[in-house]
């Protein structure tokens, strides 16, 4: 073979998103926030539960977005970190009687460390190879959780039942509503943290690495440090989401955290728009509601209906919800001019 095909001028796998295009304007943010606060006041408990899950998966998608959209690394292993977070919270709450709110930072830290450590070997890999490595992590996790060695803590195949917390200080709201607002507060905090992270020096380093690793290292960015850091931060946020998920669902079992979850989170990121943080919530809505819609349309063919809907979505907006946001922004701008 000639020398030519050994040299590839490869386009980066993840397109460059300028950091200003990563967030919403303050007006839109405010509207979304008001909606998120007000809607649960008027709906049934089950819908509140679904909205809680919406936020939780939103966080997990956001975490993947920081990793992929921010630093350009691809992961199919997010379900593993989600599982670690969920189990950390569940074990602390049920075996050691720790307050549920305190288990979340622990879950975050544990997952941050796990992600950081996993990021070290992952440094050598990129593209499909990294996908395979993270995939291995995702398939291994449920099996590891089932191991007899850990059964004392994890409850083995049966998993653990988690008690749902009551609203504190005698607040006159139900458990579901309390958990929703609790989740909302954490989600907002993490969202603000993520936005600021991507705007900071570290965020710029992530993006430089995403756009061109060699150029980034030539500029003096410690590529290894920032790549593993991105893995750690992403895993940490996923861990918090996992902990919240365990509290909301009130149950953890190894088979809730299979590769299917990792694939769902990935789809959520694509539908929401890779690298566009507010899109995470749109993506999360997609992975929570569309399977149900598909099931309603046809029981026997629900998978096919889901696939068709997914195809329609990516045909209409290959760049995810971000594309809709940009187009509508331009439309509004044009209307204002007239």
């Amino acid at each position: 073979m000639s020398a030519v095909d050994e040299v590839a001028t490869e386009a980066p796998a993840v397109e460059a998103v300028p950091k200003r295009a990563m967030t919403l304007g303050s007006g839109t943010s405010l509207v979304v926030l008001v909606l998120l606060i007000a809607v649960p006041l008027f709906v049934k408990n089950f819908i509140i539960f679904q909205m809680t899950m919406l936020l939780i998966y939103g966080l997990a998608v956001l975490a993947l977005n920081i990793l992929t959209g921010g630093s350009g690394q691809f992961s199919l292993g997010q379900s593993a970190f989600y599982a670690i977070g969920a189990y950390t919270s569940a074990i602390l709450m049920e075996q050691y009687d720790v307050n549920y709110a305190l288990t979340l930072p622990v879950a975050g830290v544990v997952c941050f460390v796990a992600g950081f450590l996993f990021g070290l070997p992952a440094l050598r890999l990129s593209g499909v190879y990294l996908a395979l490595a993270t995939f291995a992590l995702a398939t291994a996790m449920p099996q590891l959780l089932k191991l007899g060695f850990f059964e004392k803590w994890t409850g083995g195949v049966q998993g653990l039942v988690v008690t749902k917390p009551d609203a504190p200080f005698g607040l006159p709201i139900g458990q579901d509503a309390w958990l929703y607002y609790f989740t909302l507060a954490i989600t907002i905090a993490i969202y603000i943290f993520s936005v600021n992270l991507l705007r900071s020096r570290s965020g710029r380093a992530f993006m430089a690495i995403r756009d061109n690793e060699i150029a980034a290292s030539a500029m003096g960015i410690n590529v290894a440090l920032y790549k593993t850091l991105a893995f750690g931060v992403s895993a940490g946020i996923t861990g918090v989401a996992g902990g919240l998920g365990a509290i909301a669902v009130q149950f953890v079992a190894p088979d809730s955290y299979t590769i299917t979850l990792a694939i769902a989170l990935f789809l959520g990121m694509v539908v929401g728009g890779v690298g566009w943080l507010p899109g995470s919530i749109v993506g999360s809505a997609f992975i929570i509601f569309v399977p149900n819609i598909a099931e309603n349309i046809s029981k026997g063919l629900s998978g096919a209906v889901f696939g068709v809907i997914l195809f329609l979505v990516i045909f209409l907006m290959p760049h995810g919800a971000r594309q809709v946001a940009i187009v509508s922004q331009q439309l509004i701008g044009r209307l204002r001019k007239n």
Partner: protein
Amino acid sequence: MELFSNQILAGISTGAIYACMALAVVMIYQAIDHLNFAQGEMAMFSTFISWQLMQWGLPYWAAFVVTIAFSFLAGIAIERVLFKPLAKAPILTNVAGFIALFSIVNSSAGLIWDFTIKQYPTPFGSSPFLGSQLISTHQAGMIGVTLLLLVALYVFFQYTRVGLAMRAAASLPESARLVGINTSWMIALGWGMAAAIGSIAGMLIAPVVFLEPNMMGGVLIYGFAAAVLGGLSSPFGAVTGGFLVGILENLAGTYIPGVGNELKLPIALAVIVSVLVVKPAGLFGRPIVKRV
């Protein structure tokens, strides 16, 4: 020692399955430069088609040939209809498309042929091969077909004009277009060939794992792993990778205490990842040198 050699032999016979699938994976990787997650499901669907043909009374080899032709055309059709419009979309969007395709094919096959497990015939017979209990004539035949396919692919890529054009289109699309190669159709052709090879893999695997809509789930993962281990740019590497993964899986199951069937896959994957950490382009892949 006998246990050891028996495990190696058993590993080779399961490895043949993975090697077959890995070839299809490498084929599509050569054509479109990424992995197709729906490949296993496409192969499963083709296998069902051949099963249906045989139910209608066609002899095995006739069904075999018709299925390959059908898969080839279906592969091209899928590319033209579903993935050509996505050619300019980001890669991750394409991957989402593969997942959608996976879901559609799997669910449709379930509806048409239902989820009960079906027997699938083998043309090679299933008596012990050369007196060994561990490897049947079917598995020996499968290894033979895989090696035959490998040689055919090698000749195709190395010595035919179309093969050369396809390699060019995959590695440097723009330059390929400048010398007059229709890169768009090269991609479609790659899809067709990958689907055809996948259908062969499916028809060879079905007698072992039995025919049902989810039969390819596990196999495809091993196929990917094998292709990545061997190096995605090399069909030879893919086949070697397939056998290695099969052997590795069997040895891990036998010799590492506490590893049941459940932990075989994670351990095999862990070993593969460790190999990749040392050799990031796979055992036989050429490292890609990036132009700055």
